[in-house]
């Protein structure tokens, strides 16, 4: 195409890592360029600062964490919405020492949970499984307290904390992926401004499509260039970590599972969103009566884009 590529900025919510692989893949292998996009990826940091940059127009797309935050945006009247959900399952896990085998056993353990976790999924654990706030100690993104206290468990991302624990603790922890126990939010979404959806749906569509193709290629194709780019943005990361993350994403079907078989990566459905919202209302994480449907649109996904790239 002869026209100049559109400049867009995509903000992530953490430093570059394999969990952002698909986006780096699309950038590295020229998929974005092919779709007429000149993309800049702006890595986030320990605090989700890039998030507010979206509504004020400093960035065009933002990598959202989970749907709870997107529904909060509706409550606060922030004009943004989710246009694609790259992770079918939230990678949030509870990590326990190897002696724990059953999810129910966690109820008697000390749990290291972050402030954000306590304000969100933990309320659901209280409601659905009878966990209690009294067993919680704060998690500050450092696994040492968990390693020291044999009678504890901690929160984490399936793709990262278990690796550090295996390396430093020298044992394989038991992992409970919350998604597998009923925490059915989408994760690693693409959010954008409502106004962009209305005024330039074509741009949004191109970005969503290219990102989905990027994810297929990252998981199933040659991801060397993407990993090089990730390492450039974050020199701390090692090949072993990346390999671990990709393996876990595949093993637990984080990206490609369930609806994606028919609808392709990035899929979202009204039914699942309704189910999630109702569960959260029941757990008192969210208020009843929120027009949660305003938090997302199915306009750009479920088109089976890139499905052919998945292994048969």
């Amino acid at each position, binding site marked *: 195409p002869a026209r100049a590529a559109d400049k867009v900025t995509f903000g992530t919510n953490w430093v570059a890592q394999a969990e952002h692989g698909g986006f780096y893949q699309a950038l590295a292998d020229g998929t974005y360029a092919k779709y007429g996009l000149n993309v800049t990826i702006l890595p986030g940091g320990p605090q989700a600062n890039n*998030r*507010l940059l979206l*509504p*004020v127009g400093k960035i065009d797309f933002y990598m959202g964490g989970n749907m709870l*935050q997107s529904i*909060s*945006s509706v*409550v*606060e*009247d*922030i004009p943004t919405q989710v246009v694609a959900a790259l992770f079918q399952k939230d990678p949030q896990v509870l990590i326990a020492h190897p002696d724990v085998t059953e999810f129910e056993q966690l109820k008697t353990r000390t749990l290291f*949970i*972050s*402030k*954000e976790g*306590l*304000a*969100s999924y933990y309320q659901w654990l209280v409601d659905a499984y009878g966990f209690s*706030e009294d067993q*919680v*100690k*704060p*998690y*500050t*993104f*450092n696994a*040492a*307290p968990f390693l*020291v206290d044999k009678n504890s468990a901690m929160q984490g991302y399936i793709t990262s904390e278990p690796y550090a624990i295996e390396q430093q603790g020298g044992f394989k922890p038991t992992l409970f992926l919350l998604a597998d126990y009923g925490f059915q939010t989408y994760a690693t979404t693409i959010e954008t401004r409502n106004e962009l959806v209305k005024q330039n749906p074509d741009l949004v569509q191109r970005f969503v499509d290219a990102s989905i193709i990027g994810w297929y290629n990252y998981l199933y194709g040659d991801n060397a260039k993407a990993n090089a780019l990730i390492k450039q943005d974050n020199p701390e990361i090692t090949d072993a970590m990346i390999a671990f993350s990709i393996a876990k994403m595949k093993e637990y079907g984080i990206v490609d599972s369930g609806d994606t078989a028919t609808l392709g990566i990035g899929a979202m459905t009204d039914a699942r969103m309704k189910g999630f919202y109702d569960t959260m209302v029941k757990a008192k994480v969210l208020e009843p009566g929120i027009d949660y449907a305003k938090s997302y649109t199915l306009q750009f996904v479920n088109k089976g884009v890139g499905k052919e790239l998945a292994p048969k």
Partner: protein
Amino acid sequence: MSTSPLRWLLPLGVLAALVLAWALVVKLNNLPPYVLPAPGVVLETLVEDRAVLFASMLVTLRTTVIALALAVAGGVALALLFASARIVEFSLFPIAVILQVTPVIAVAPLMLIYLSTDAAVLLCAWIVAFFPVLSNTTLGLNSVDPNLRDLFRLSGATRWQTLAQLKLPTALPYFLGGLRIAGGLALIGAVVGEIAAGSAGQGSGLAFRIVESAYRLNIPRLFAALLLISLTGILIYAVLSLLSWLVLRRWHESELGGRT
């Protein structure tokens, strides 16, 4: 320090002007509340959520006051130790500096291994607040009038007497200056400590309210919490200034204000 009503009206006026400017900026630029909420909206939120917010403020204030008290105790005790001999000061000051510059936010997780959350928060606030007390008090203790020191020596004053009756009064204006700095620092120390130690859930301080509000993108509530912190800070400062005035007004230049 005049007792005229201007003494109180002017600062209030300036604050009012500031709030007005804030309101105007929001109005004229038509800023949405998630970028900068108007003062009215913040106030509304404050009134609406007063139960939760004030409870949190009390928690934070409690931590602050205890941390400040401990900072005073620790800072003054260390300063006294330092004042006992220059060699002690040289030897131990580096450790005090290390304590000061250690970023609590980074070591809080390590503290949590051995301490309860509350104790860790307190320790964070203490670490931040103790240094100004120590530093200013040490400076004050070293600024004793040499003639008075000689007088004490001649009168056979014990170490302890010289300390209590000469060095401490001399250091008082410096100490009180350090205390005013430490007051605000204890407050932000408490907030940072709460954030760093990740204290959360019910019965937690303003920091959790801020993080929670940020997570929910409830920016007016975040500002309401910030407002409470500012008010707490001003309150602490005012109390410490009053204390300083009460103690020094009869003899120290800084509180006499050039009266003739």
